C-alpha cells in the first residue's frame, strides 16, 4: 500500500559545482577582468606587462597564502604590513653592517617566525582575540621599525645576489613570481592533502572538537601565525630587494590588500572554509585591477573608488550567484 521510493540520486556535477562555487565565482570574475582590460587597453596583454604584474604581486600573493591559513582558523593577522616593514628595515640594516645577503635572509626568516610565534602565543595560549593581538602588533612592530631606522630609508648596496631575488628572472620569468607560485602550490598541497592542513581546517571549524579528538589545537593555532610571520619575512625581503633599500615606510595598508585578496577568493572569515586556489585568484584579481586602471589612465582620484566598487561587486557576485547553492529547476 505505502510506496517506498528512494530519493533521486544527487547529480555529481551539481554537487561538484556546489563544492567549488567560491573558486568558480572568483575565477569567472578574474577572467572577466582580464577580458575587460584586454579589450580596453593595448598594453595589458603584453608579456612585459603581465610579467610586471606577477612580479609586483608576489609579496601580496605570498602573504595571502599564509593569511588563508590564518583565516581558516577563524583568526586574522592585521600585523602583516608591519612585519614586512620591520623585516625590510632590519634586512637593510644588517646588510649595511656587513652581513652577506644569504645570512641576512636566513636571519630574517627566523625573525619573521619568532614575531609570528609571539603573536600566536598570545592568541592561542593566552586566549586573546587575534584581532586585538595583531592590532597591537601592527602598532608595536611598525614602531620598532621606525625606531631602528629613525625614519631613514637605508640603502642596500652591492648585493647582486640579493637584487636578483627581487628583480632577476629565471628563464624569462621574474624570480619573485616563481617564488610566489611555488609557495602557492606548497600551500595548496598542505591545505588539501596533509594532516596539518586537515588540522587547520578542524581547528577553524570547531576548536573544541579538534581539542577533544586530541589534536594539538593550541599549537596549530599558534603555528599559522608563525607561517604568516615567515611569509611576511619573505615578502619583506622581496620588497627590500626590489626597492634596493629598507624603510619603515614599506607596506603601509598591505594587510588590507592581503585580506581583501583572501576574502575575494572565497575564504570565510568565520573559519573552516576556504581555498588557496581562490586566494591566488583573488590576489591576481586585485593586482590586475590596480594595473589595469593605471593602463586605462583612470584619474588617480578615482582609483580608490573604482577599486572599492569592483571588490564589492566581486564579492557580491560570489555571494549571490553561488552562495546559497545551485537549485535545479527552482524559481524561488
Amino acid at each position, binding site marked *: *500500500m*505505502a*510506496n*517506498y*521510493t*528512494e*530519493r*533521486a540520486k*544527487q*547529480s555529481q556535477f*551539481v*554537487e561538484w559545482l*556546489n563544492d567549488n562555487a567560491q573558486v568558480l565565482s572568483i575565477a569567472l570574475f578574474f577572467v572577466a577582468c582580464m577580458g575587460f582590460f584586454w579589450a580596453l587597453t593595448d598594453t595589458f596583454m603584453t608579456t612585459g606587462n603581465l610579467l610586471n604584474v606577477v612580479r609586483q604581486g608576489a609579496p601580496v600573493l605570498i602573504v595571502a597564502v599564509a593569511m588563508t591559513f590564518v583565516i581558516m582558523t577563524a583568526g586574522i593577522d592585521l600585523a602583516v604590513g608591519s612585519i614586512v616593514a620591520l623585516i625590510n628595515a632590519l634586512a637593510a640594516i644588517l646588510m649595511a653592517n656587513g652581513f652577506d645577503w644569504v645570512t641576512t635572509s636566513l636571519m630574517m626568516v627566523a625573525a619573521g617566525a619568532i614575531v609570528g610565534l609571539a603573536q600566536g602565543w598570545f592568541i592561542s595560549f593566552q586566549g586573546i582575540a587575534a584581532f586585538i593581538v595583531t592590532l597591537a602588533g601592527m602598532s608595536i612592530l611598525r614602531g620598532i621599525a621606525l625606531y631602528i631606522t629613525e625614519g631613514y630609508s637605508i640603502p642596500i648596496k652591492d648585493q647582486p645576489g640579493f637584487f636578483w631575488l627581487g628583480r632577476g628572472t629565471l628563464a624569462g620569468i621574474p624570480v619573485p613570481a616563481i617564488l610566489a607560485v611555488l609557495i602557492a602550490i606548497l600551500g595548496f598541497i598542505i591545505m588539501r592533502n596533509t594532516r596539518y592542513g586537515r588540522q587547520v581546517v578542524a581547528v577553524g571549524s570547531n576548536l573544541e572538537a579538534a581539542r577533544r579528538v586530541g589534536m594539538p589545537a593550541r599549537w596549530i593555532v599558534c603555528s599559522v601565525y608563525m607561517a604568516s610571520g615567515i611569509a611576511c619575512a619573505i615578502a619583506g625581503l622581496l620588497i627590500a630587494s626590489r626597492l634596493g633599500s629598507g624603510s619603515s615606510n614599506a607596506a603601509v595598508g598591505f594587510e588590507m590588500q592581503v585580506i581583501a585578496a583572501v576574502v575575494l577568493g572565497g575564504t570565510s572569515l568565520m573559519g573552516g572554509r576556504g581555498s588557496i586556489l581562490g586566494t591566488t585568484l583573488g590576489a591576481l584579481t586585485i593586482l590586475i585591477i590596480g594595473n589595469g586602471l593605471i593602463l586605462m589612465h583612470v584619474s588617480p582620484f578615482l582609483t580608490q573608488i573604482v577599486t572599492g566598487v569592483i571588490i564589492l561587486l566581486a564579492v557580491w557576485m560570489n555571494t549571490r550567484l553561488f552562495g546559497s*547553492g*545551485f*537549485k*535545479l529547476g*527552482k524559481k524561488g
Partner: protein
Amino acid sequence: MSEASQSLERGGAIHPNSATPLVSLRDIRLTFGSHQALRGVDLDIMPGECLALLGDNAAGKSTLSKVISGTYIPDSGTISVAGEVVRFSGPNDARSRNIEMVFQDLALCDHIDVVGNLFLGRELHKGPFLDQKAMLTRAQEMLDALEIRIPRLTARVEKLSGGQRQAIAIARAASFQPKVLIMDEPTSALAVAEVEAVLSLINRVKAKGVGVVLITHRLQDVFRVCDRAAIMYEGTKVAERMIADTNLQEIVNLITGGH
C-alpha cells in the same frame, strides 16, 4: 479523480474528525541544492489532536516541520491555515498565526539569560523599555508549569546542561497560547520526570483545542499522547494511522520500510 489518487500516492490522509484542519499541507516539495529533502507531502493538523510525525533519521521530519513554522519556504505546494491558503514569507508569519515550534537545535541565544530567552521576540515592555520584573515573575511561572528547576533565571543559557536548555525551549513555545504547537524531538535530552511533564503538557494543551505535532523517536511516548501518526520515508509521507488502530510493531515496520 487525479487529486484523490495523487493524494493516495503521497501516503493518503485520514481525517479523524470533520472539523477544518488548523493547518493543511498539500504536495509540499523542497530541494536543498540537488538534495530532495521533501518530495511532495500532504499533512493535516486537526484541533485538539496530537499528530506524531515519525520516520527514520533524515526522512525529512525536521524539514517538514520547519516548513509549517515558516522557517523554510517550500519550492512548491500549498499551505492553508484554518482553510485559507497562505504564503509564509518567514517565521513571523507563522508565529502571528499562533503556530509555535520547539526546534531540534533549540534556537536559544547563548548570551541572553533564561528569562530573556523565554520571552525572545515577545518581550514584555512598558513603553519602549523592557519590563524586566514582570518577565522574571512570569518566567518563573512558565518554568514551574513544566516542573523545571533552574537555579538562577538571570544566568546566561550558555552554560546550562543539555536538558535544561531543552526545557527552556519547550517552555517558550508552550507558554504563548499557541493554536498549533510543533515539537521537534522535545524530550530527547530530558530526564524521566521532565519527560512526564512534557507529556502531560501535551495532554493539557490538546484539551484546550490546540493541534500538536510531535516528532519523536520514542515510540512508547507516541502511544501515550498521540491520536494519529504520519510516517515519513525519504522525503515522502508513506502512511498515516490512527493510534487506536495500530500497534508498536506496525509502526516500526512502517518506519523502516519493512526492512
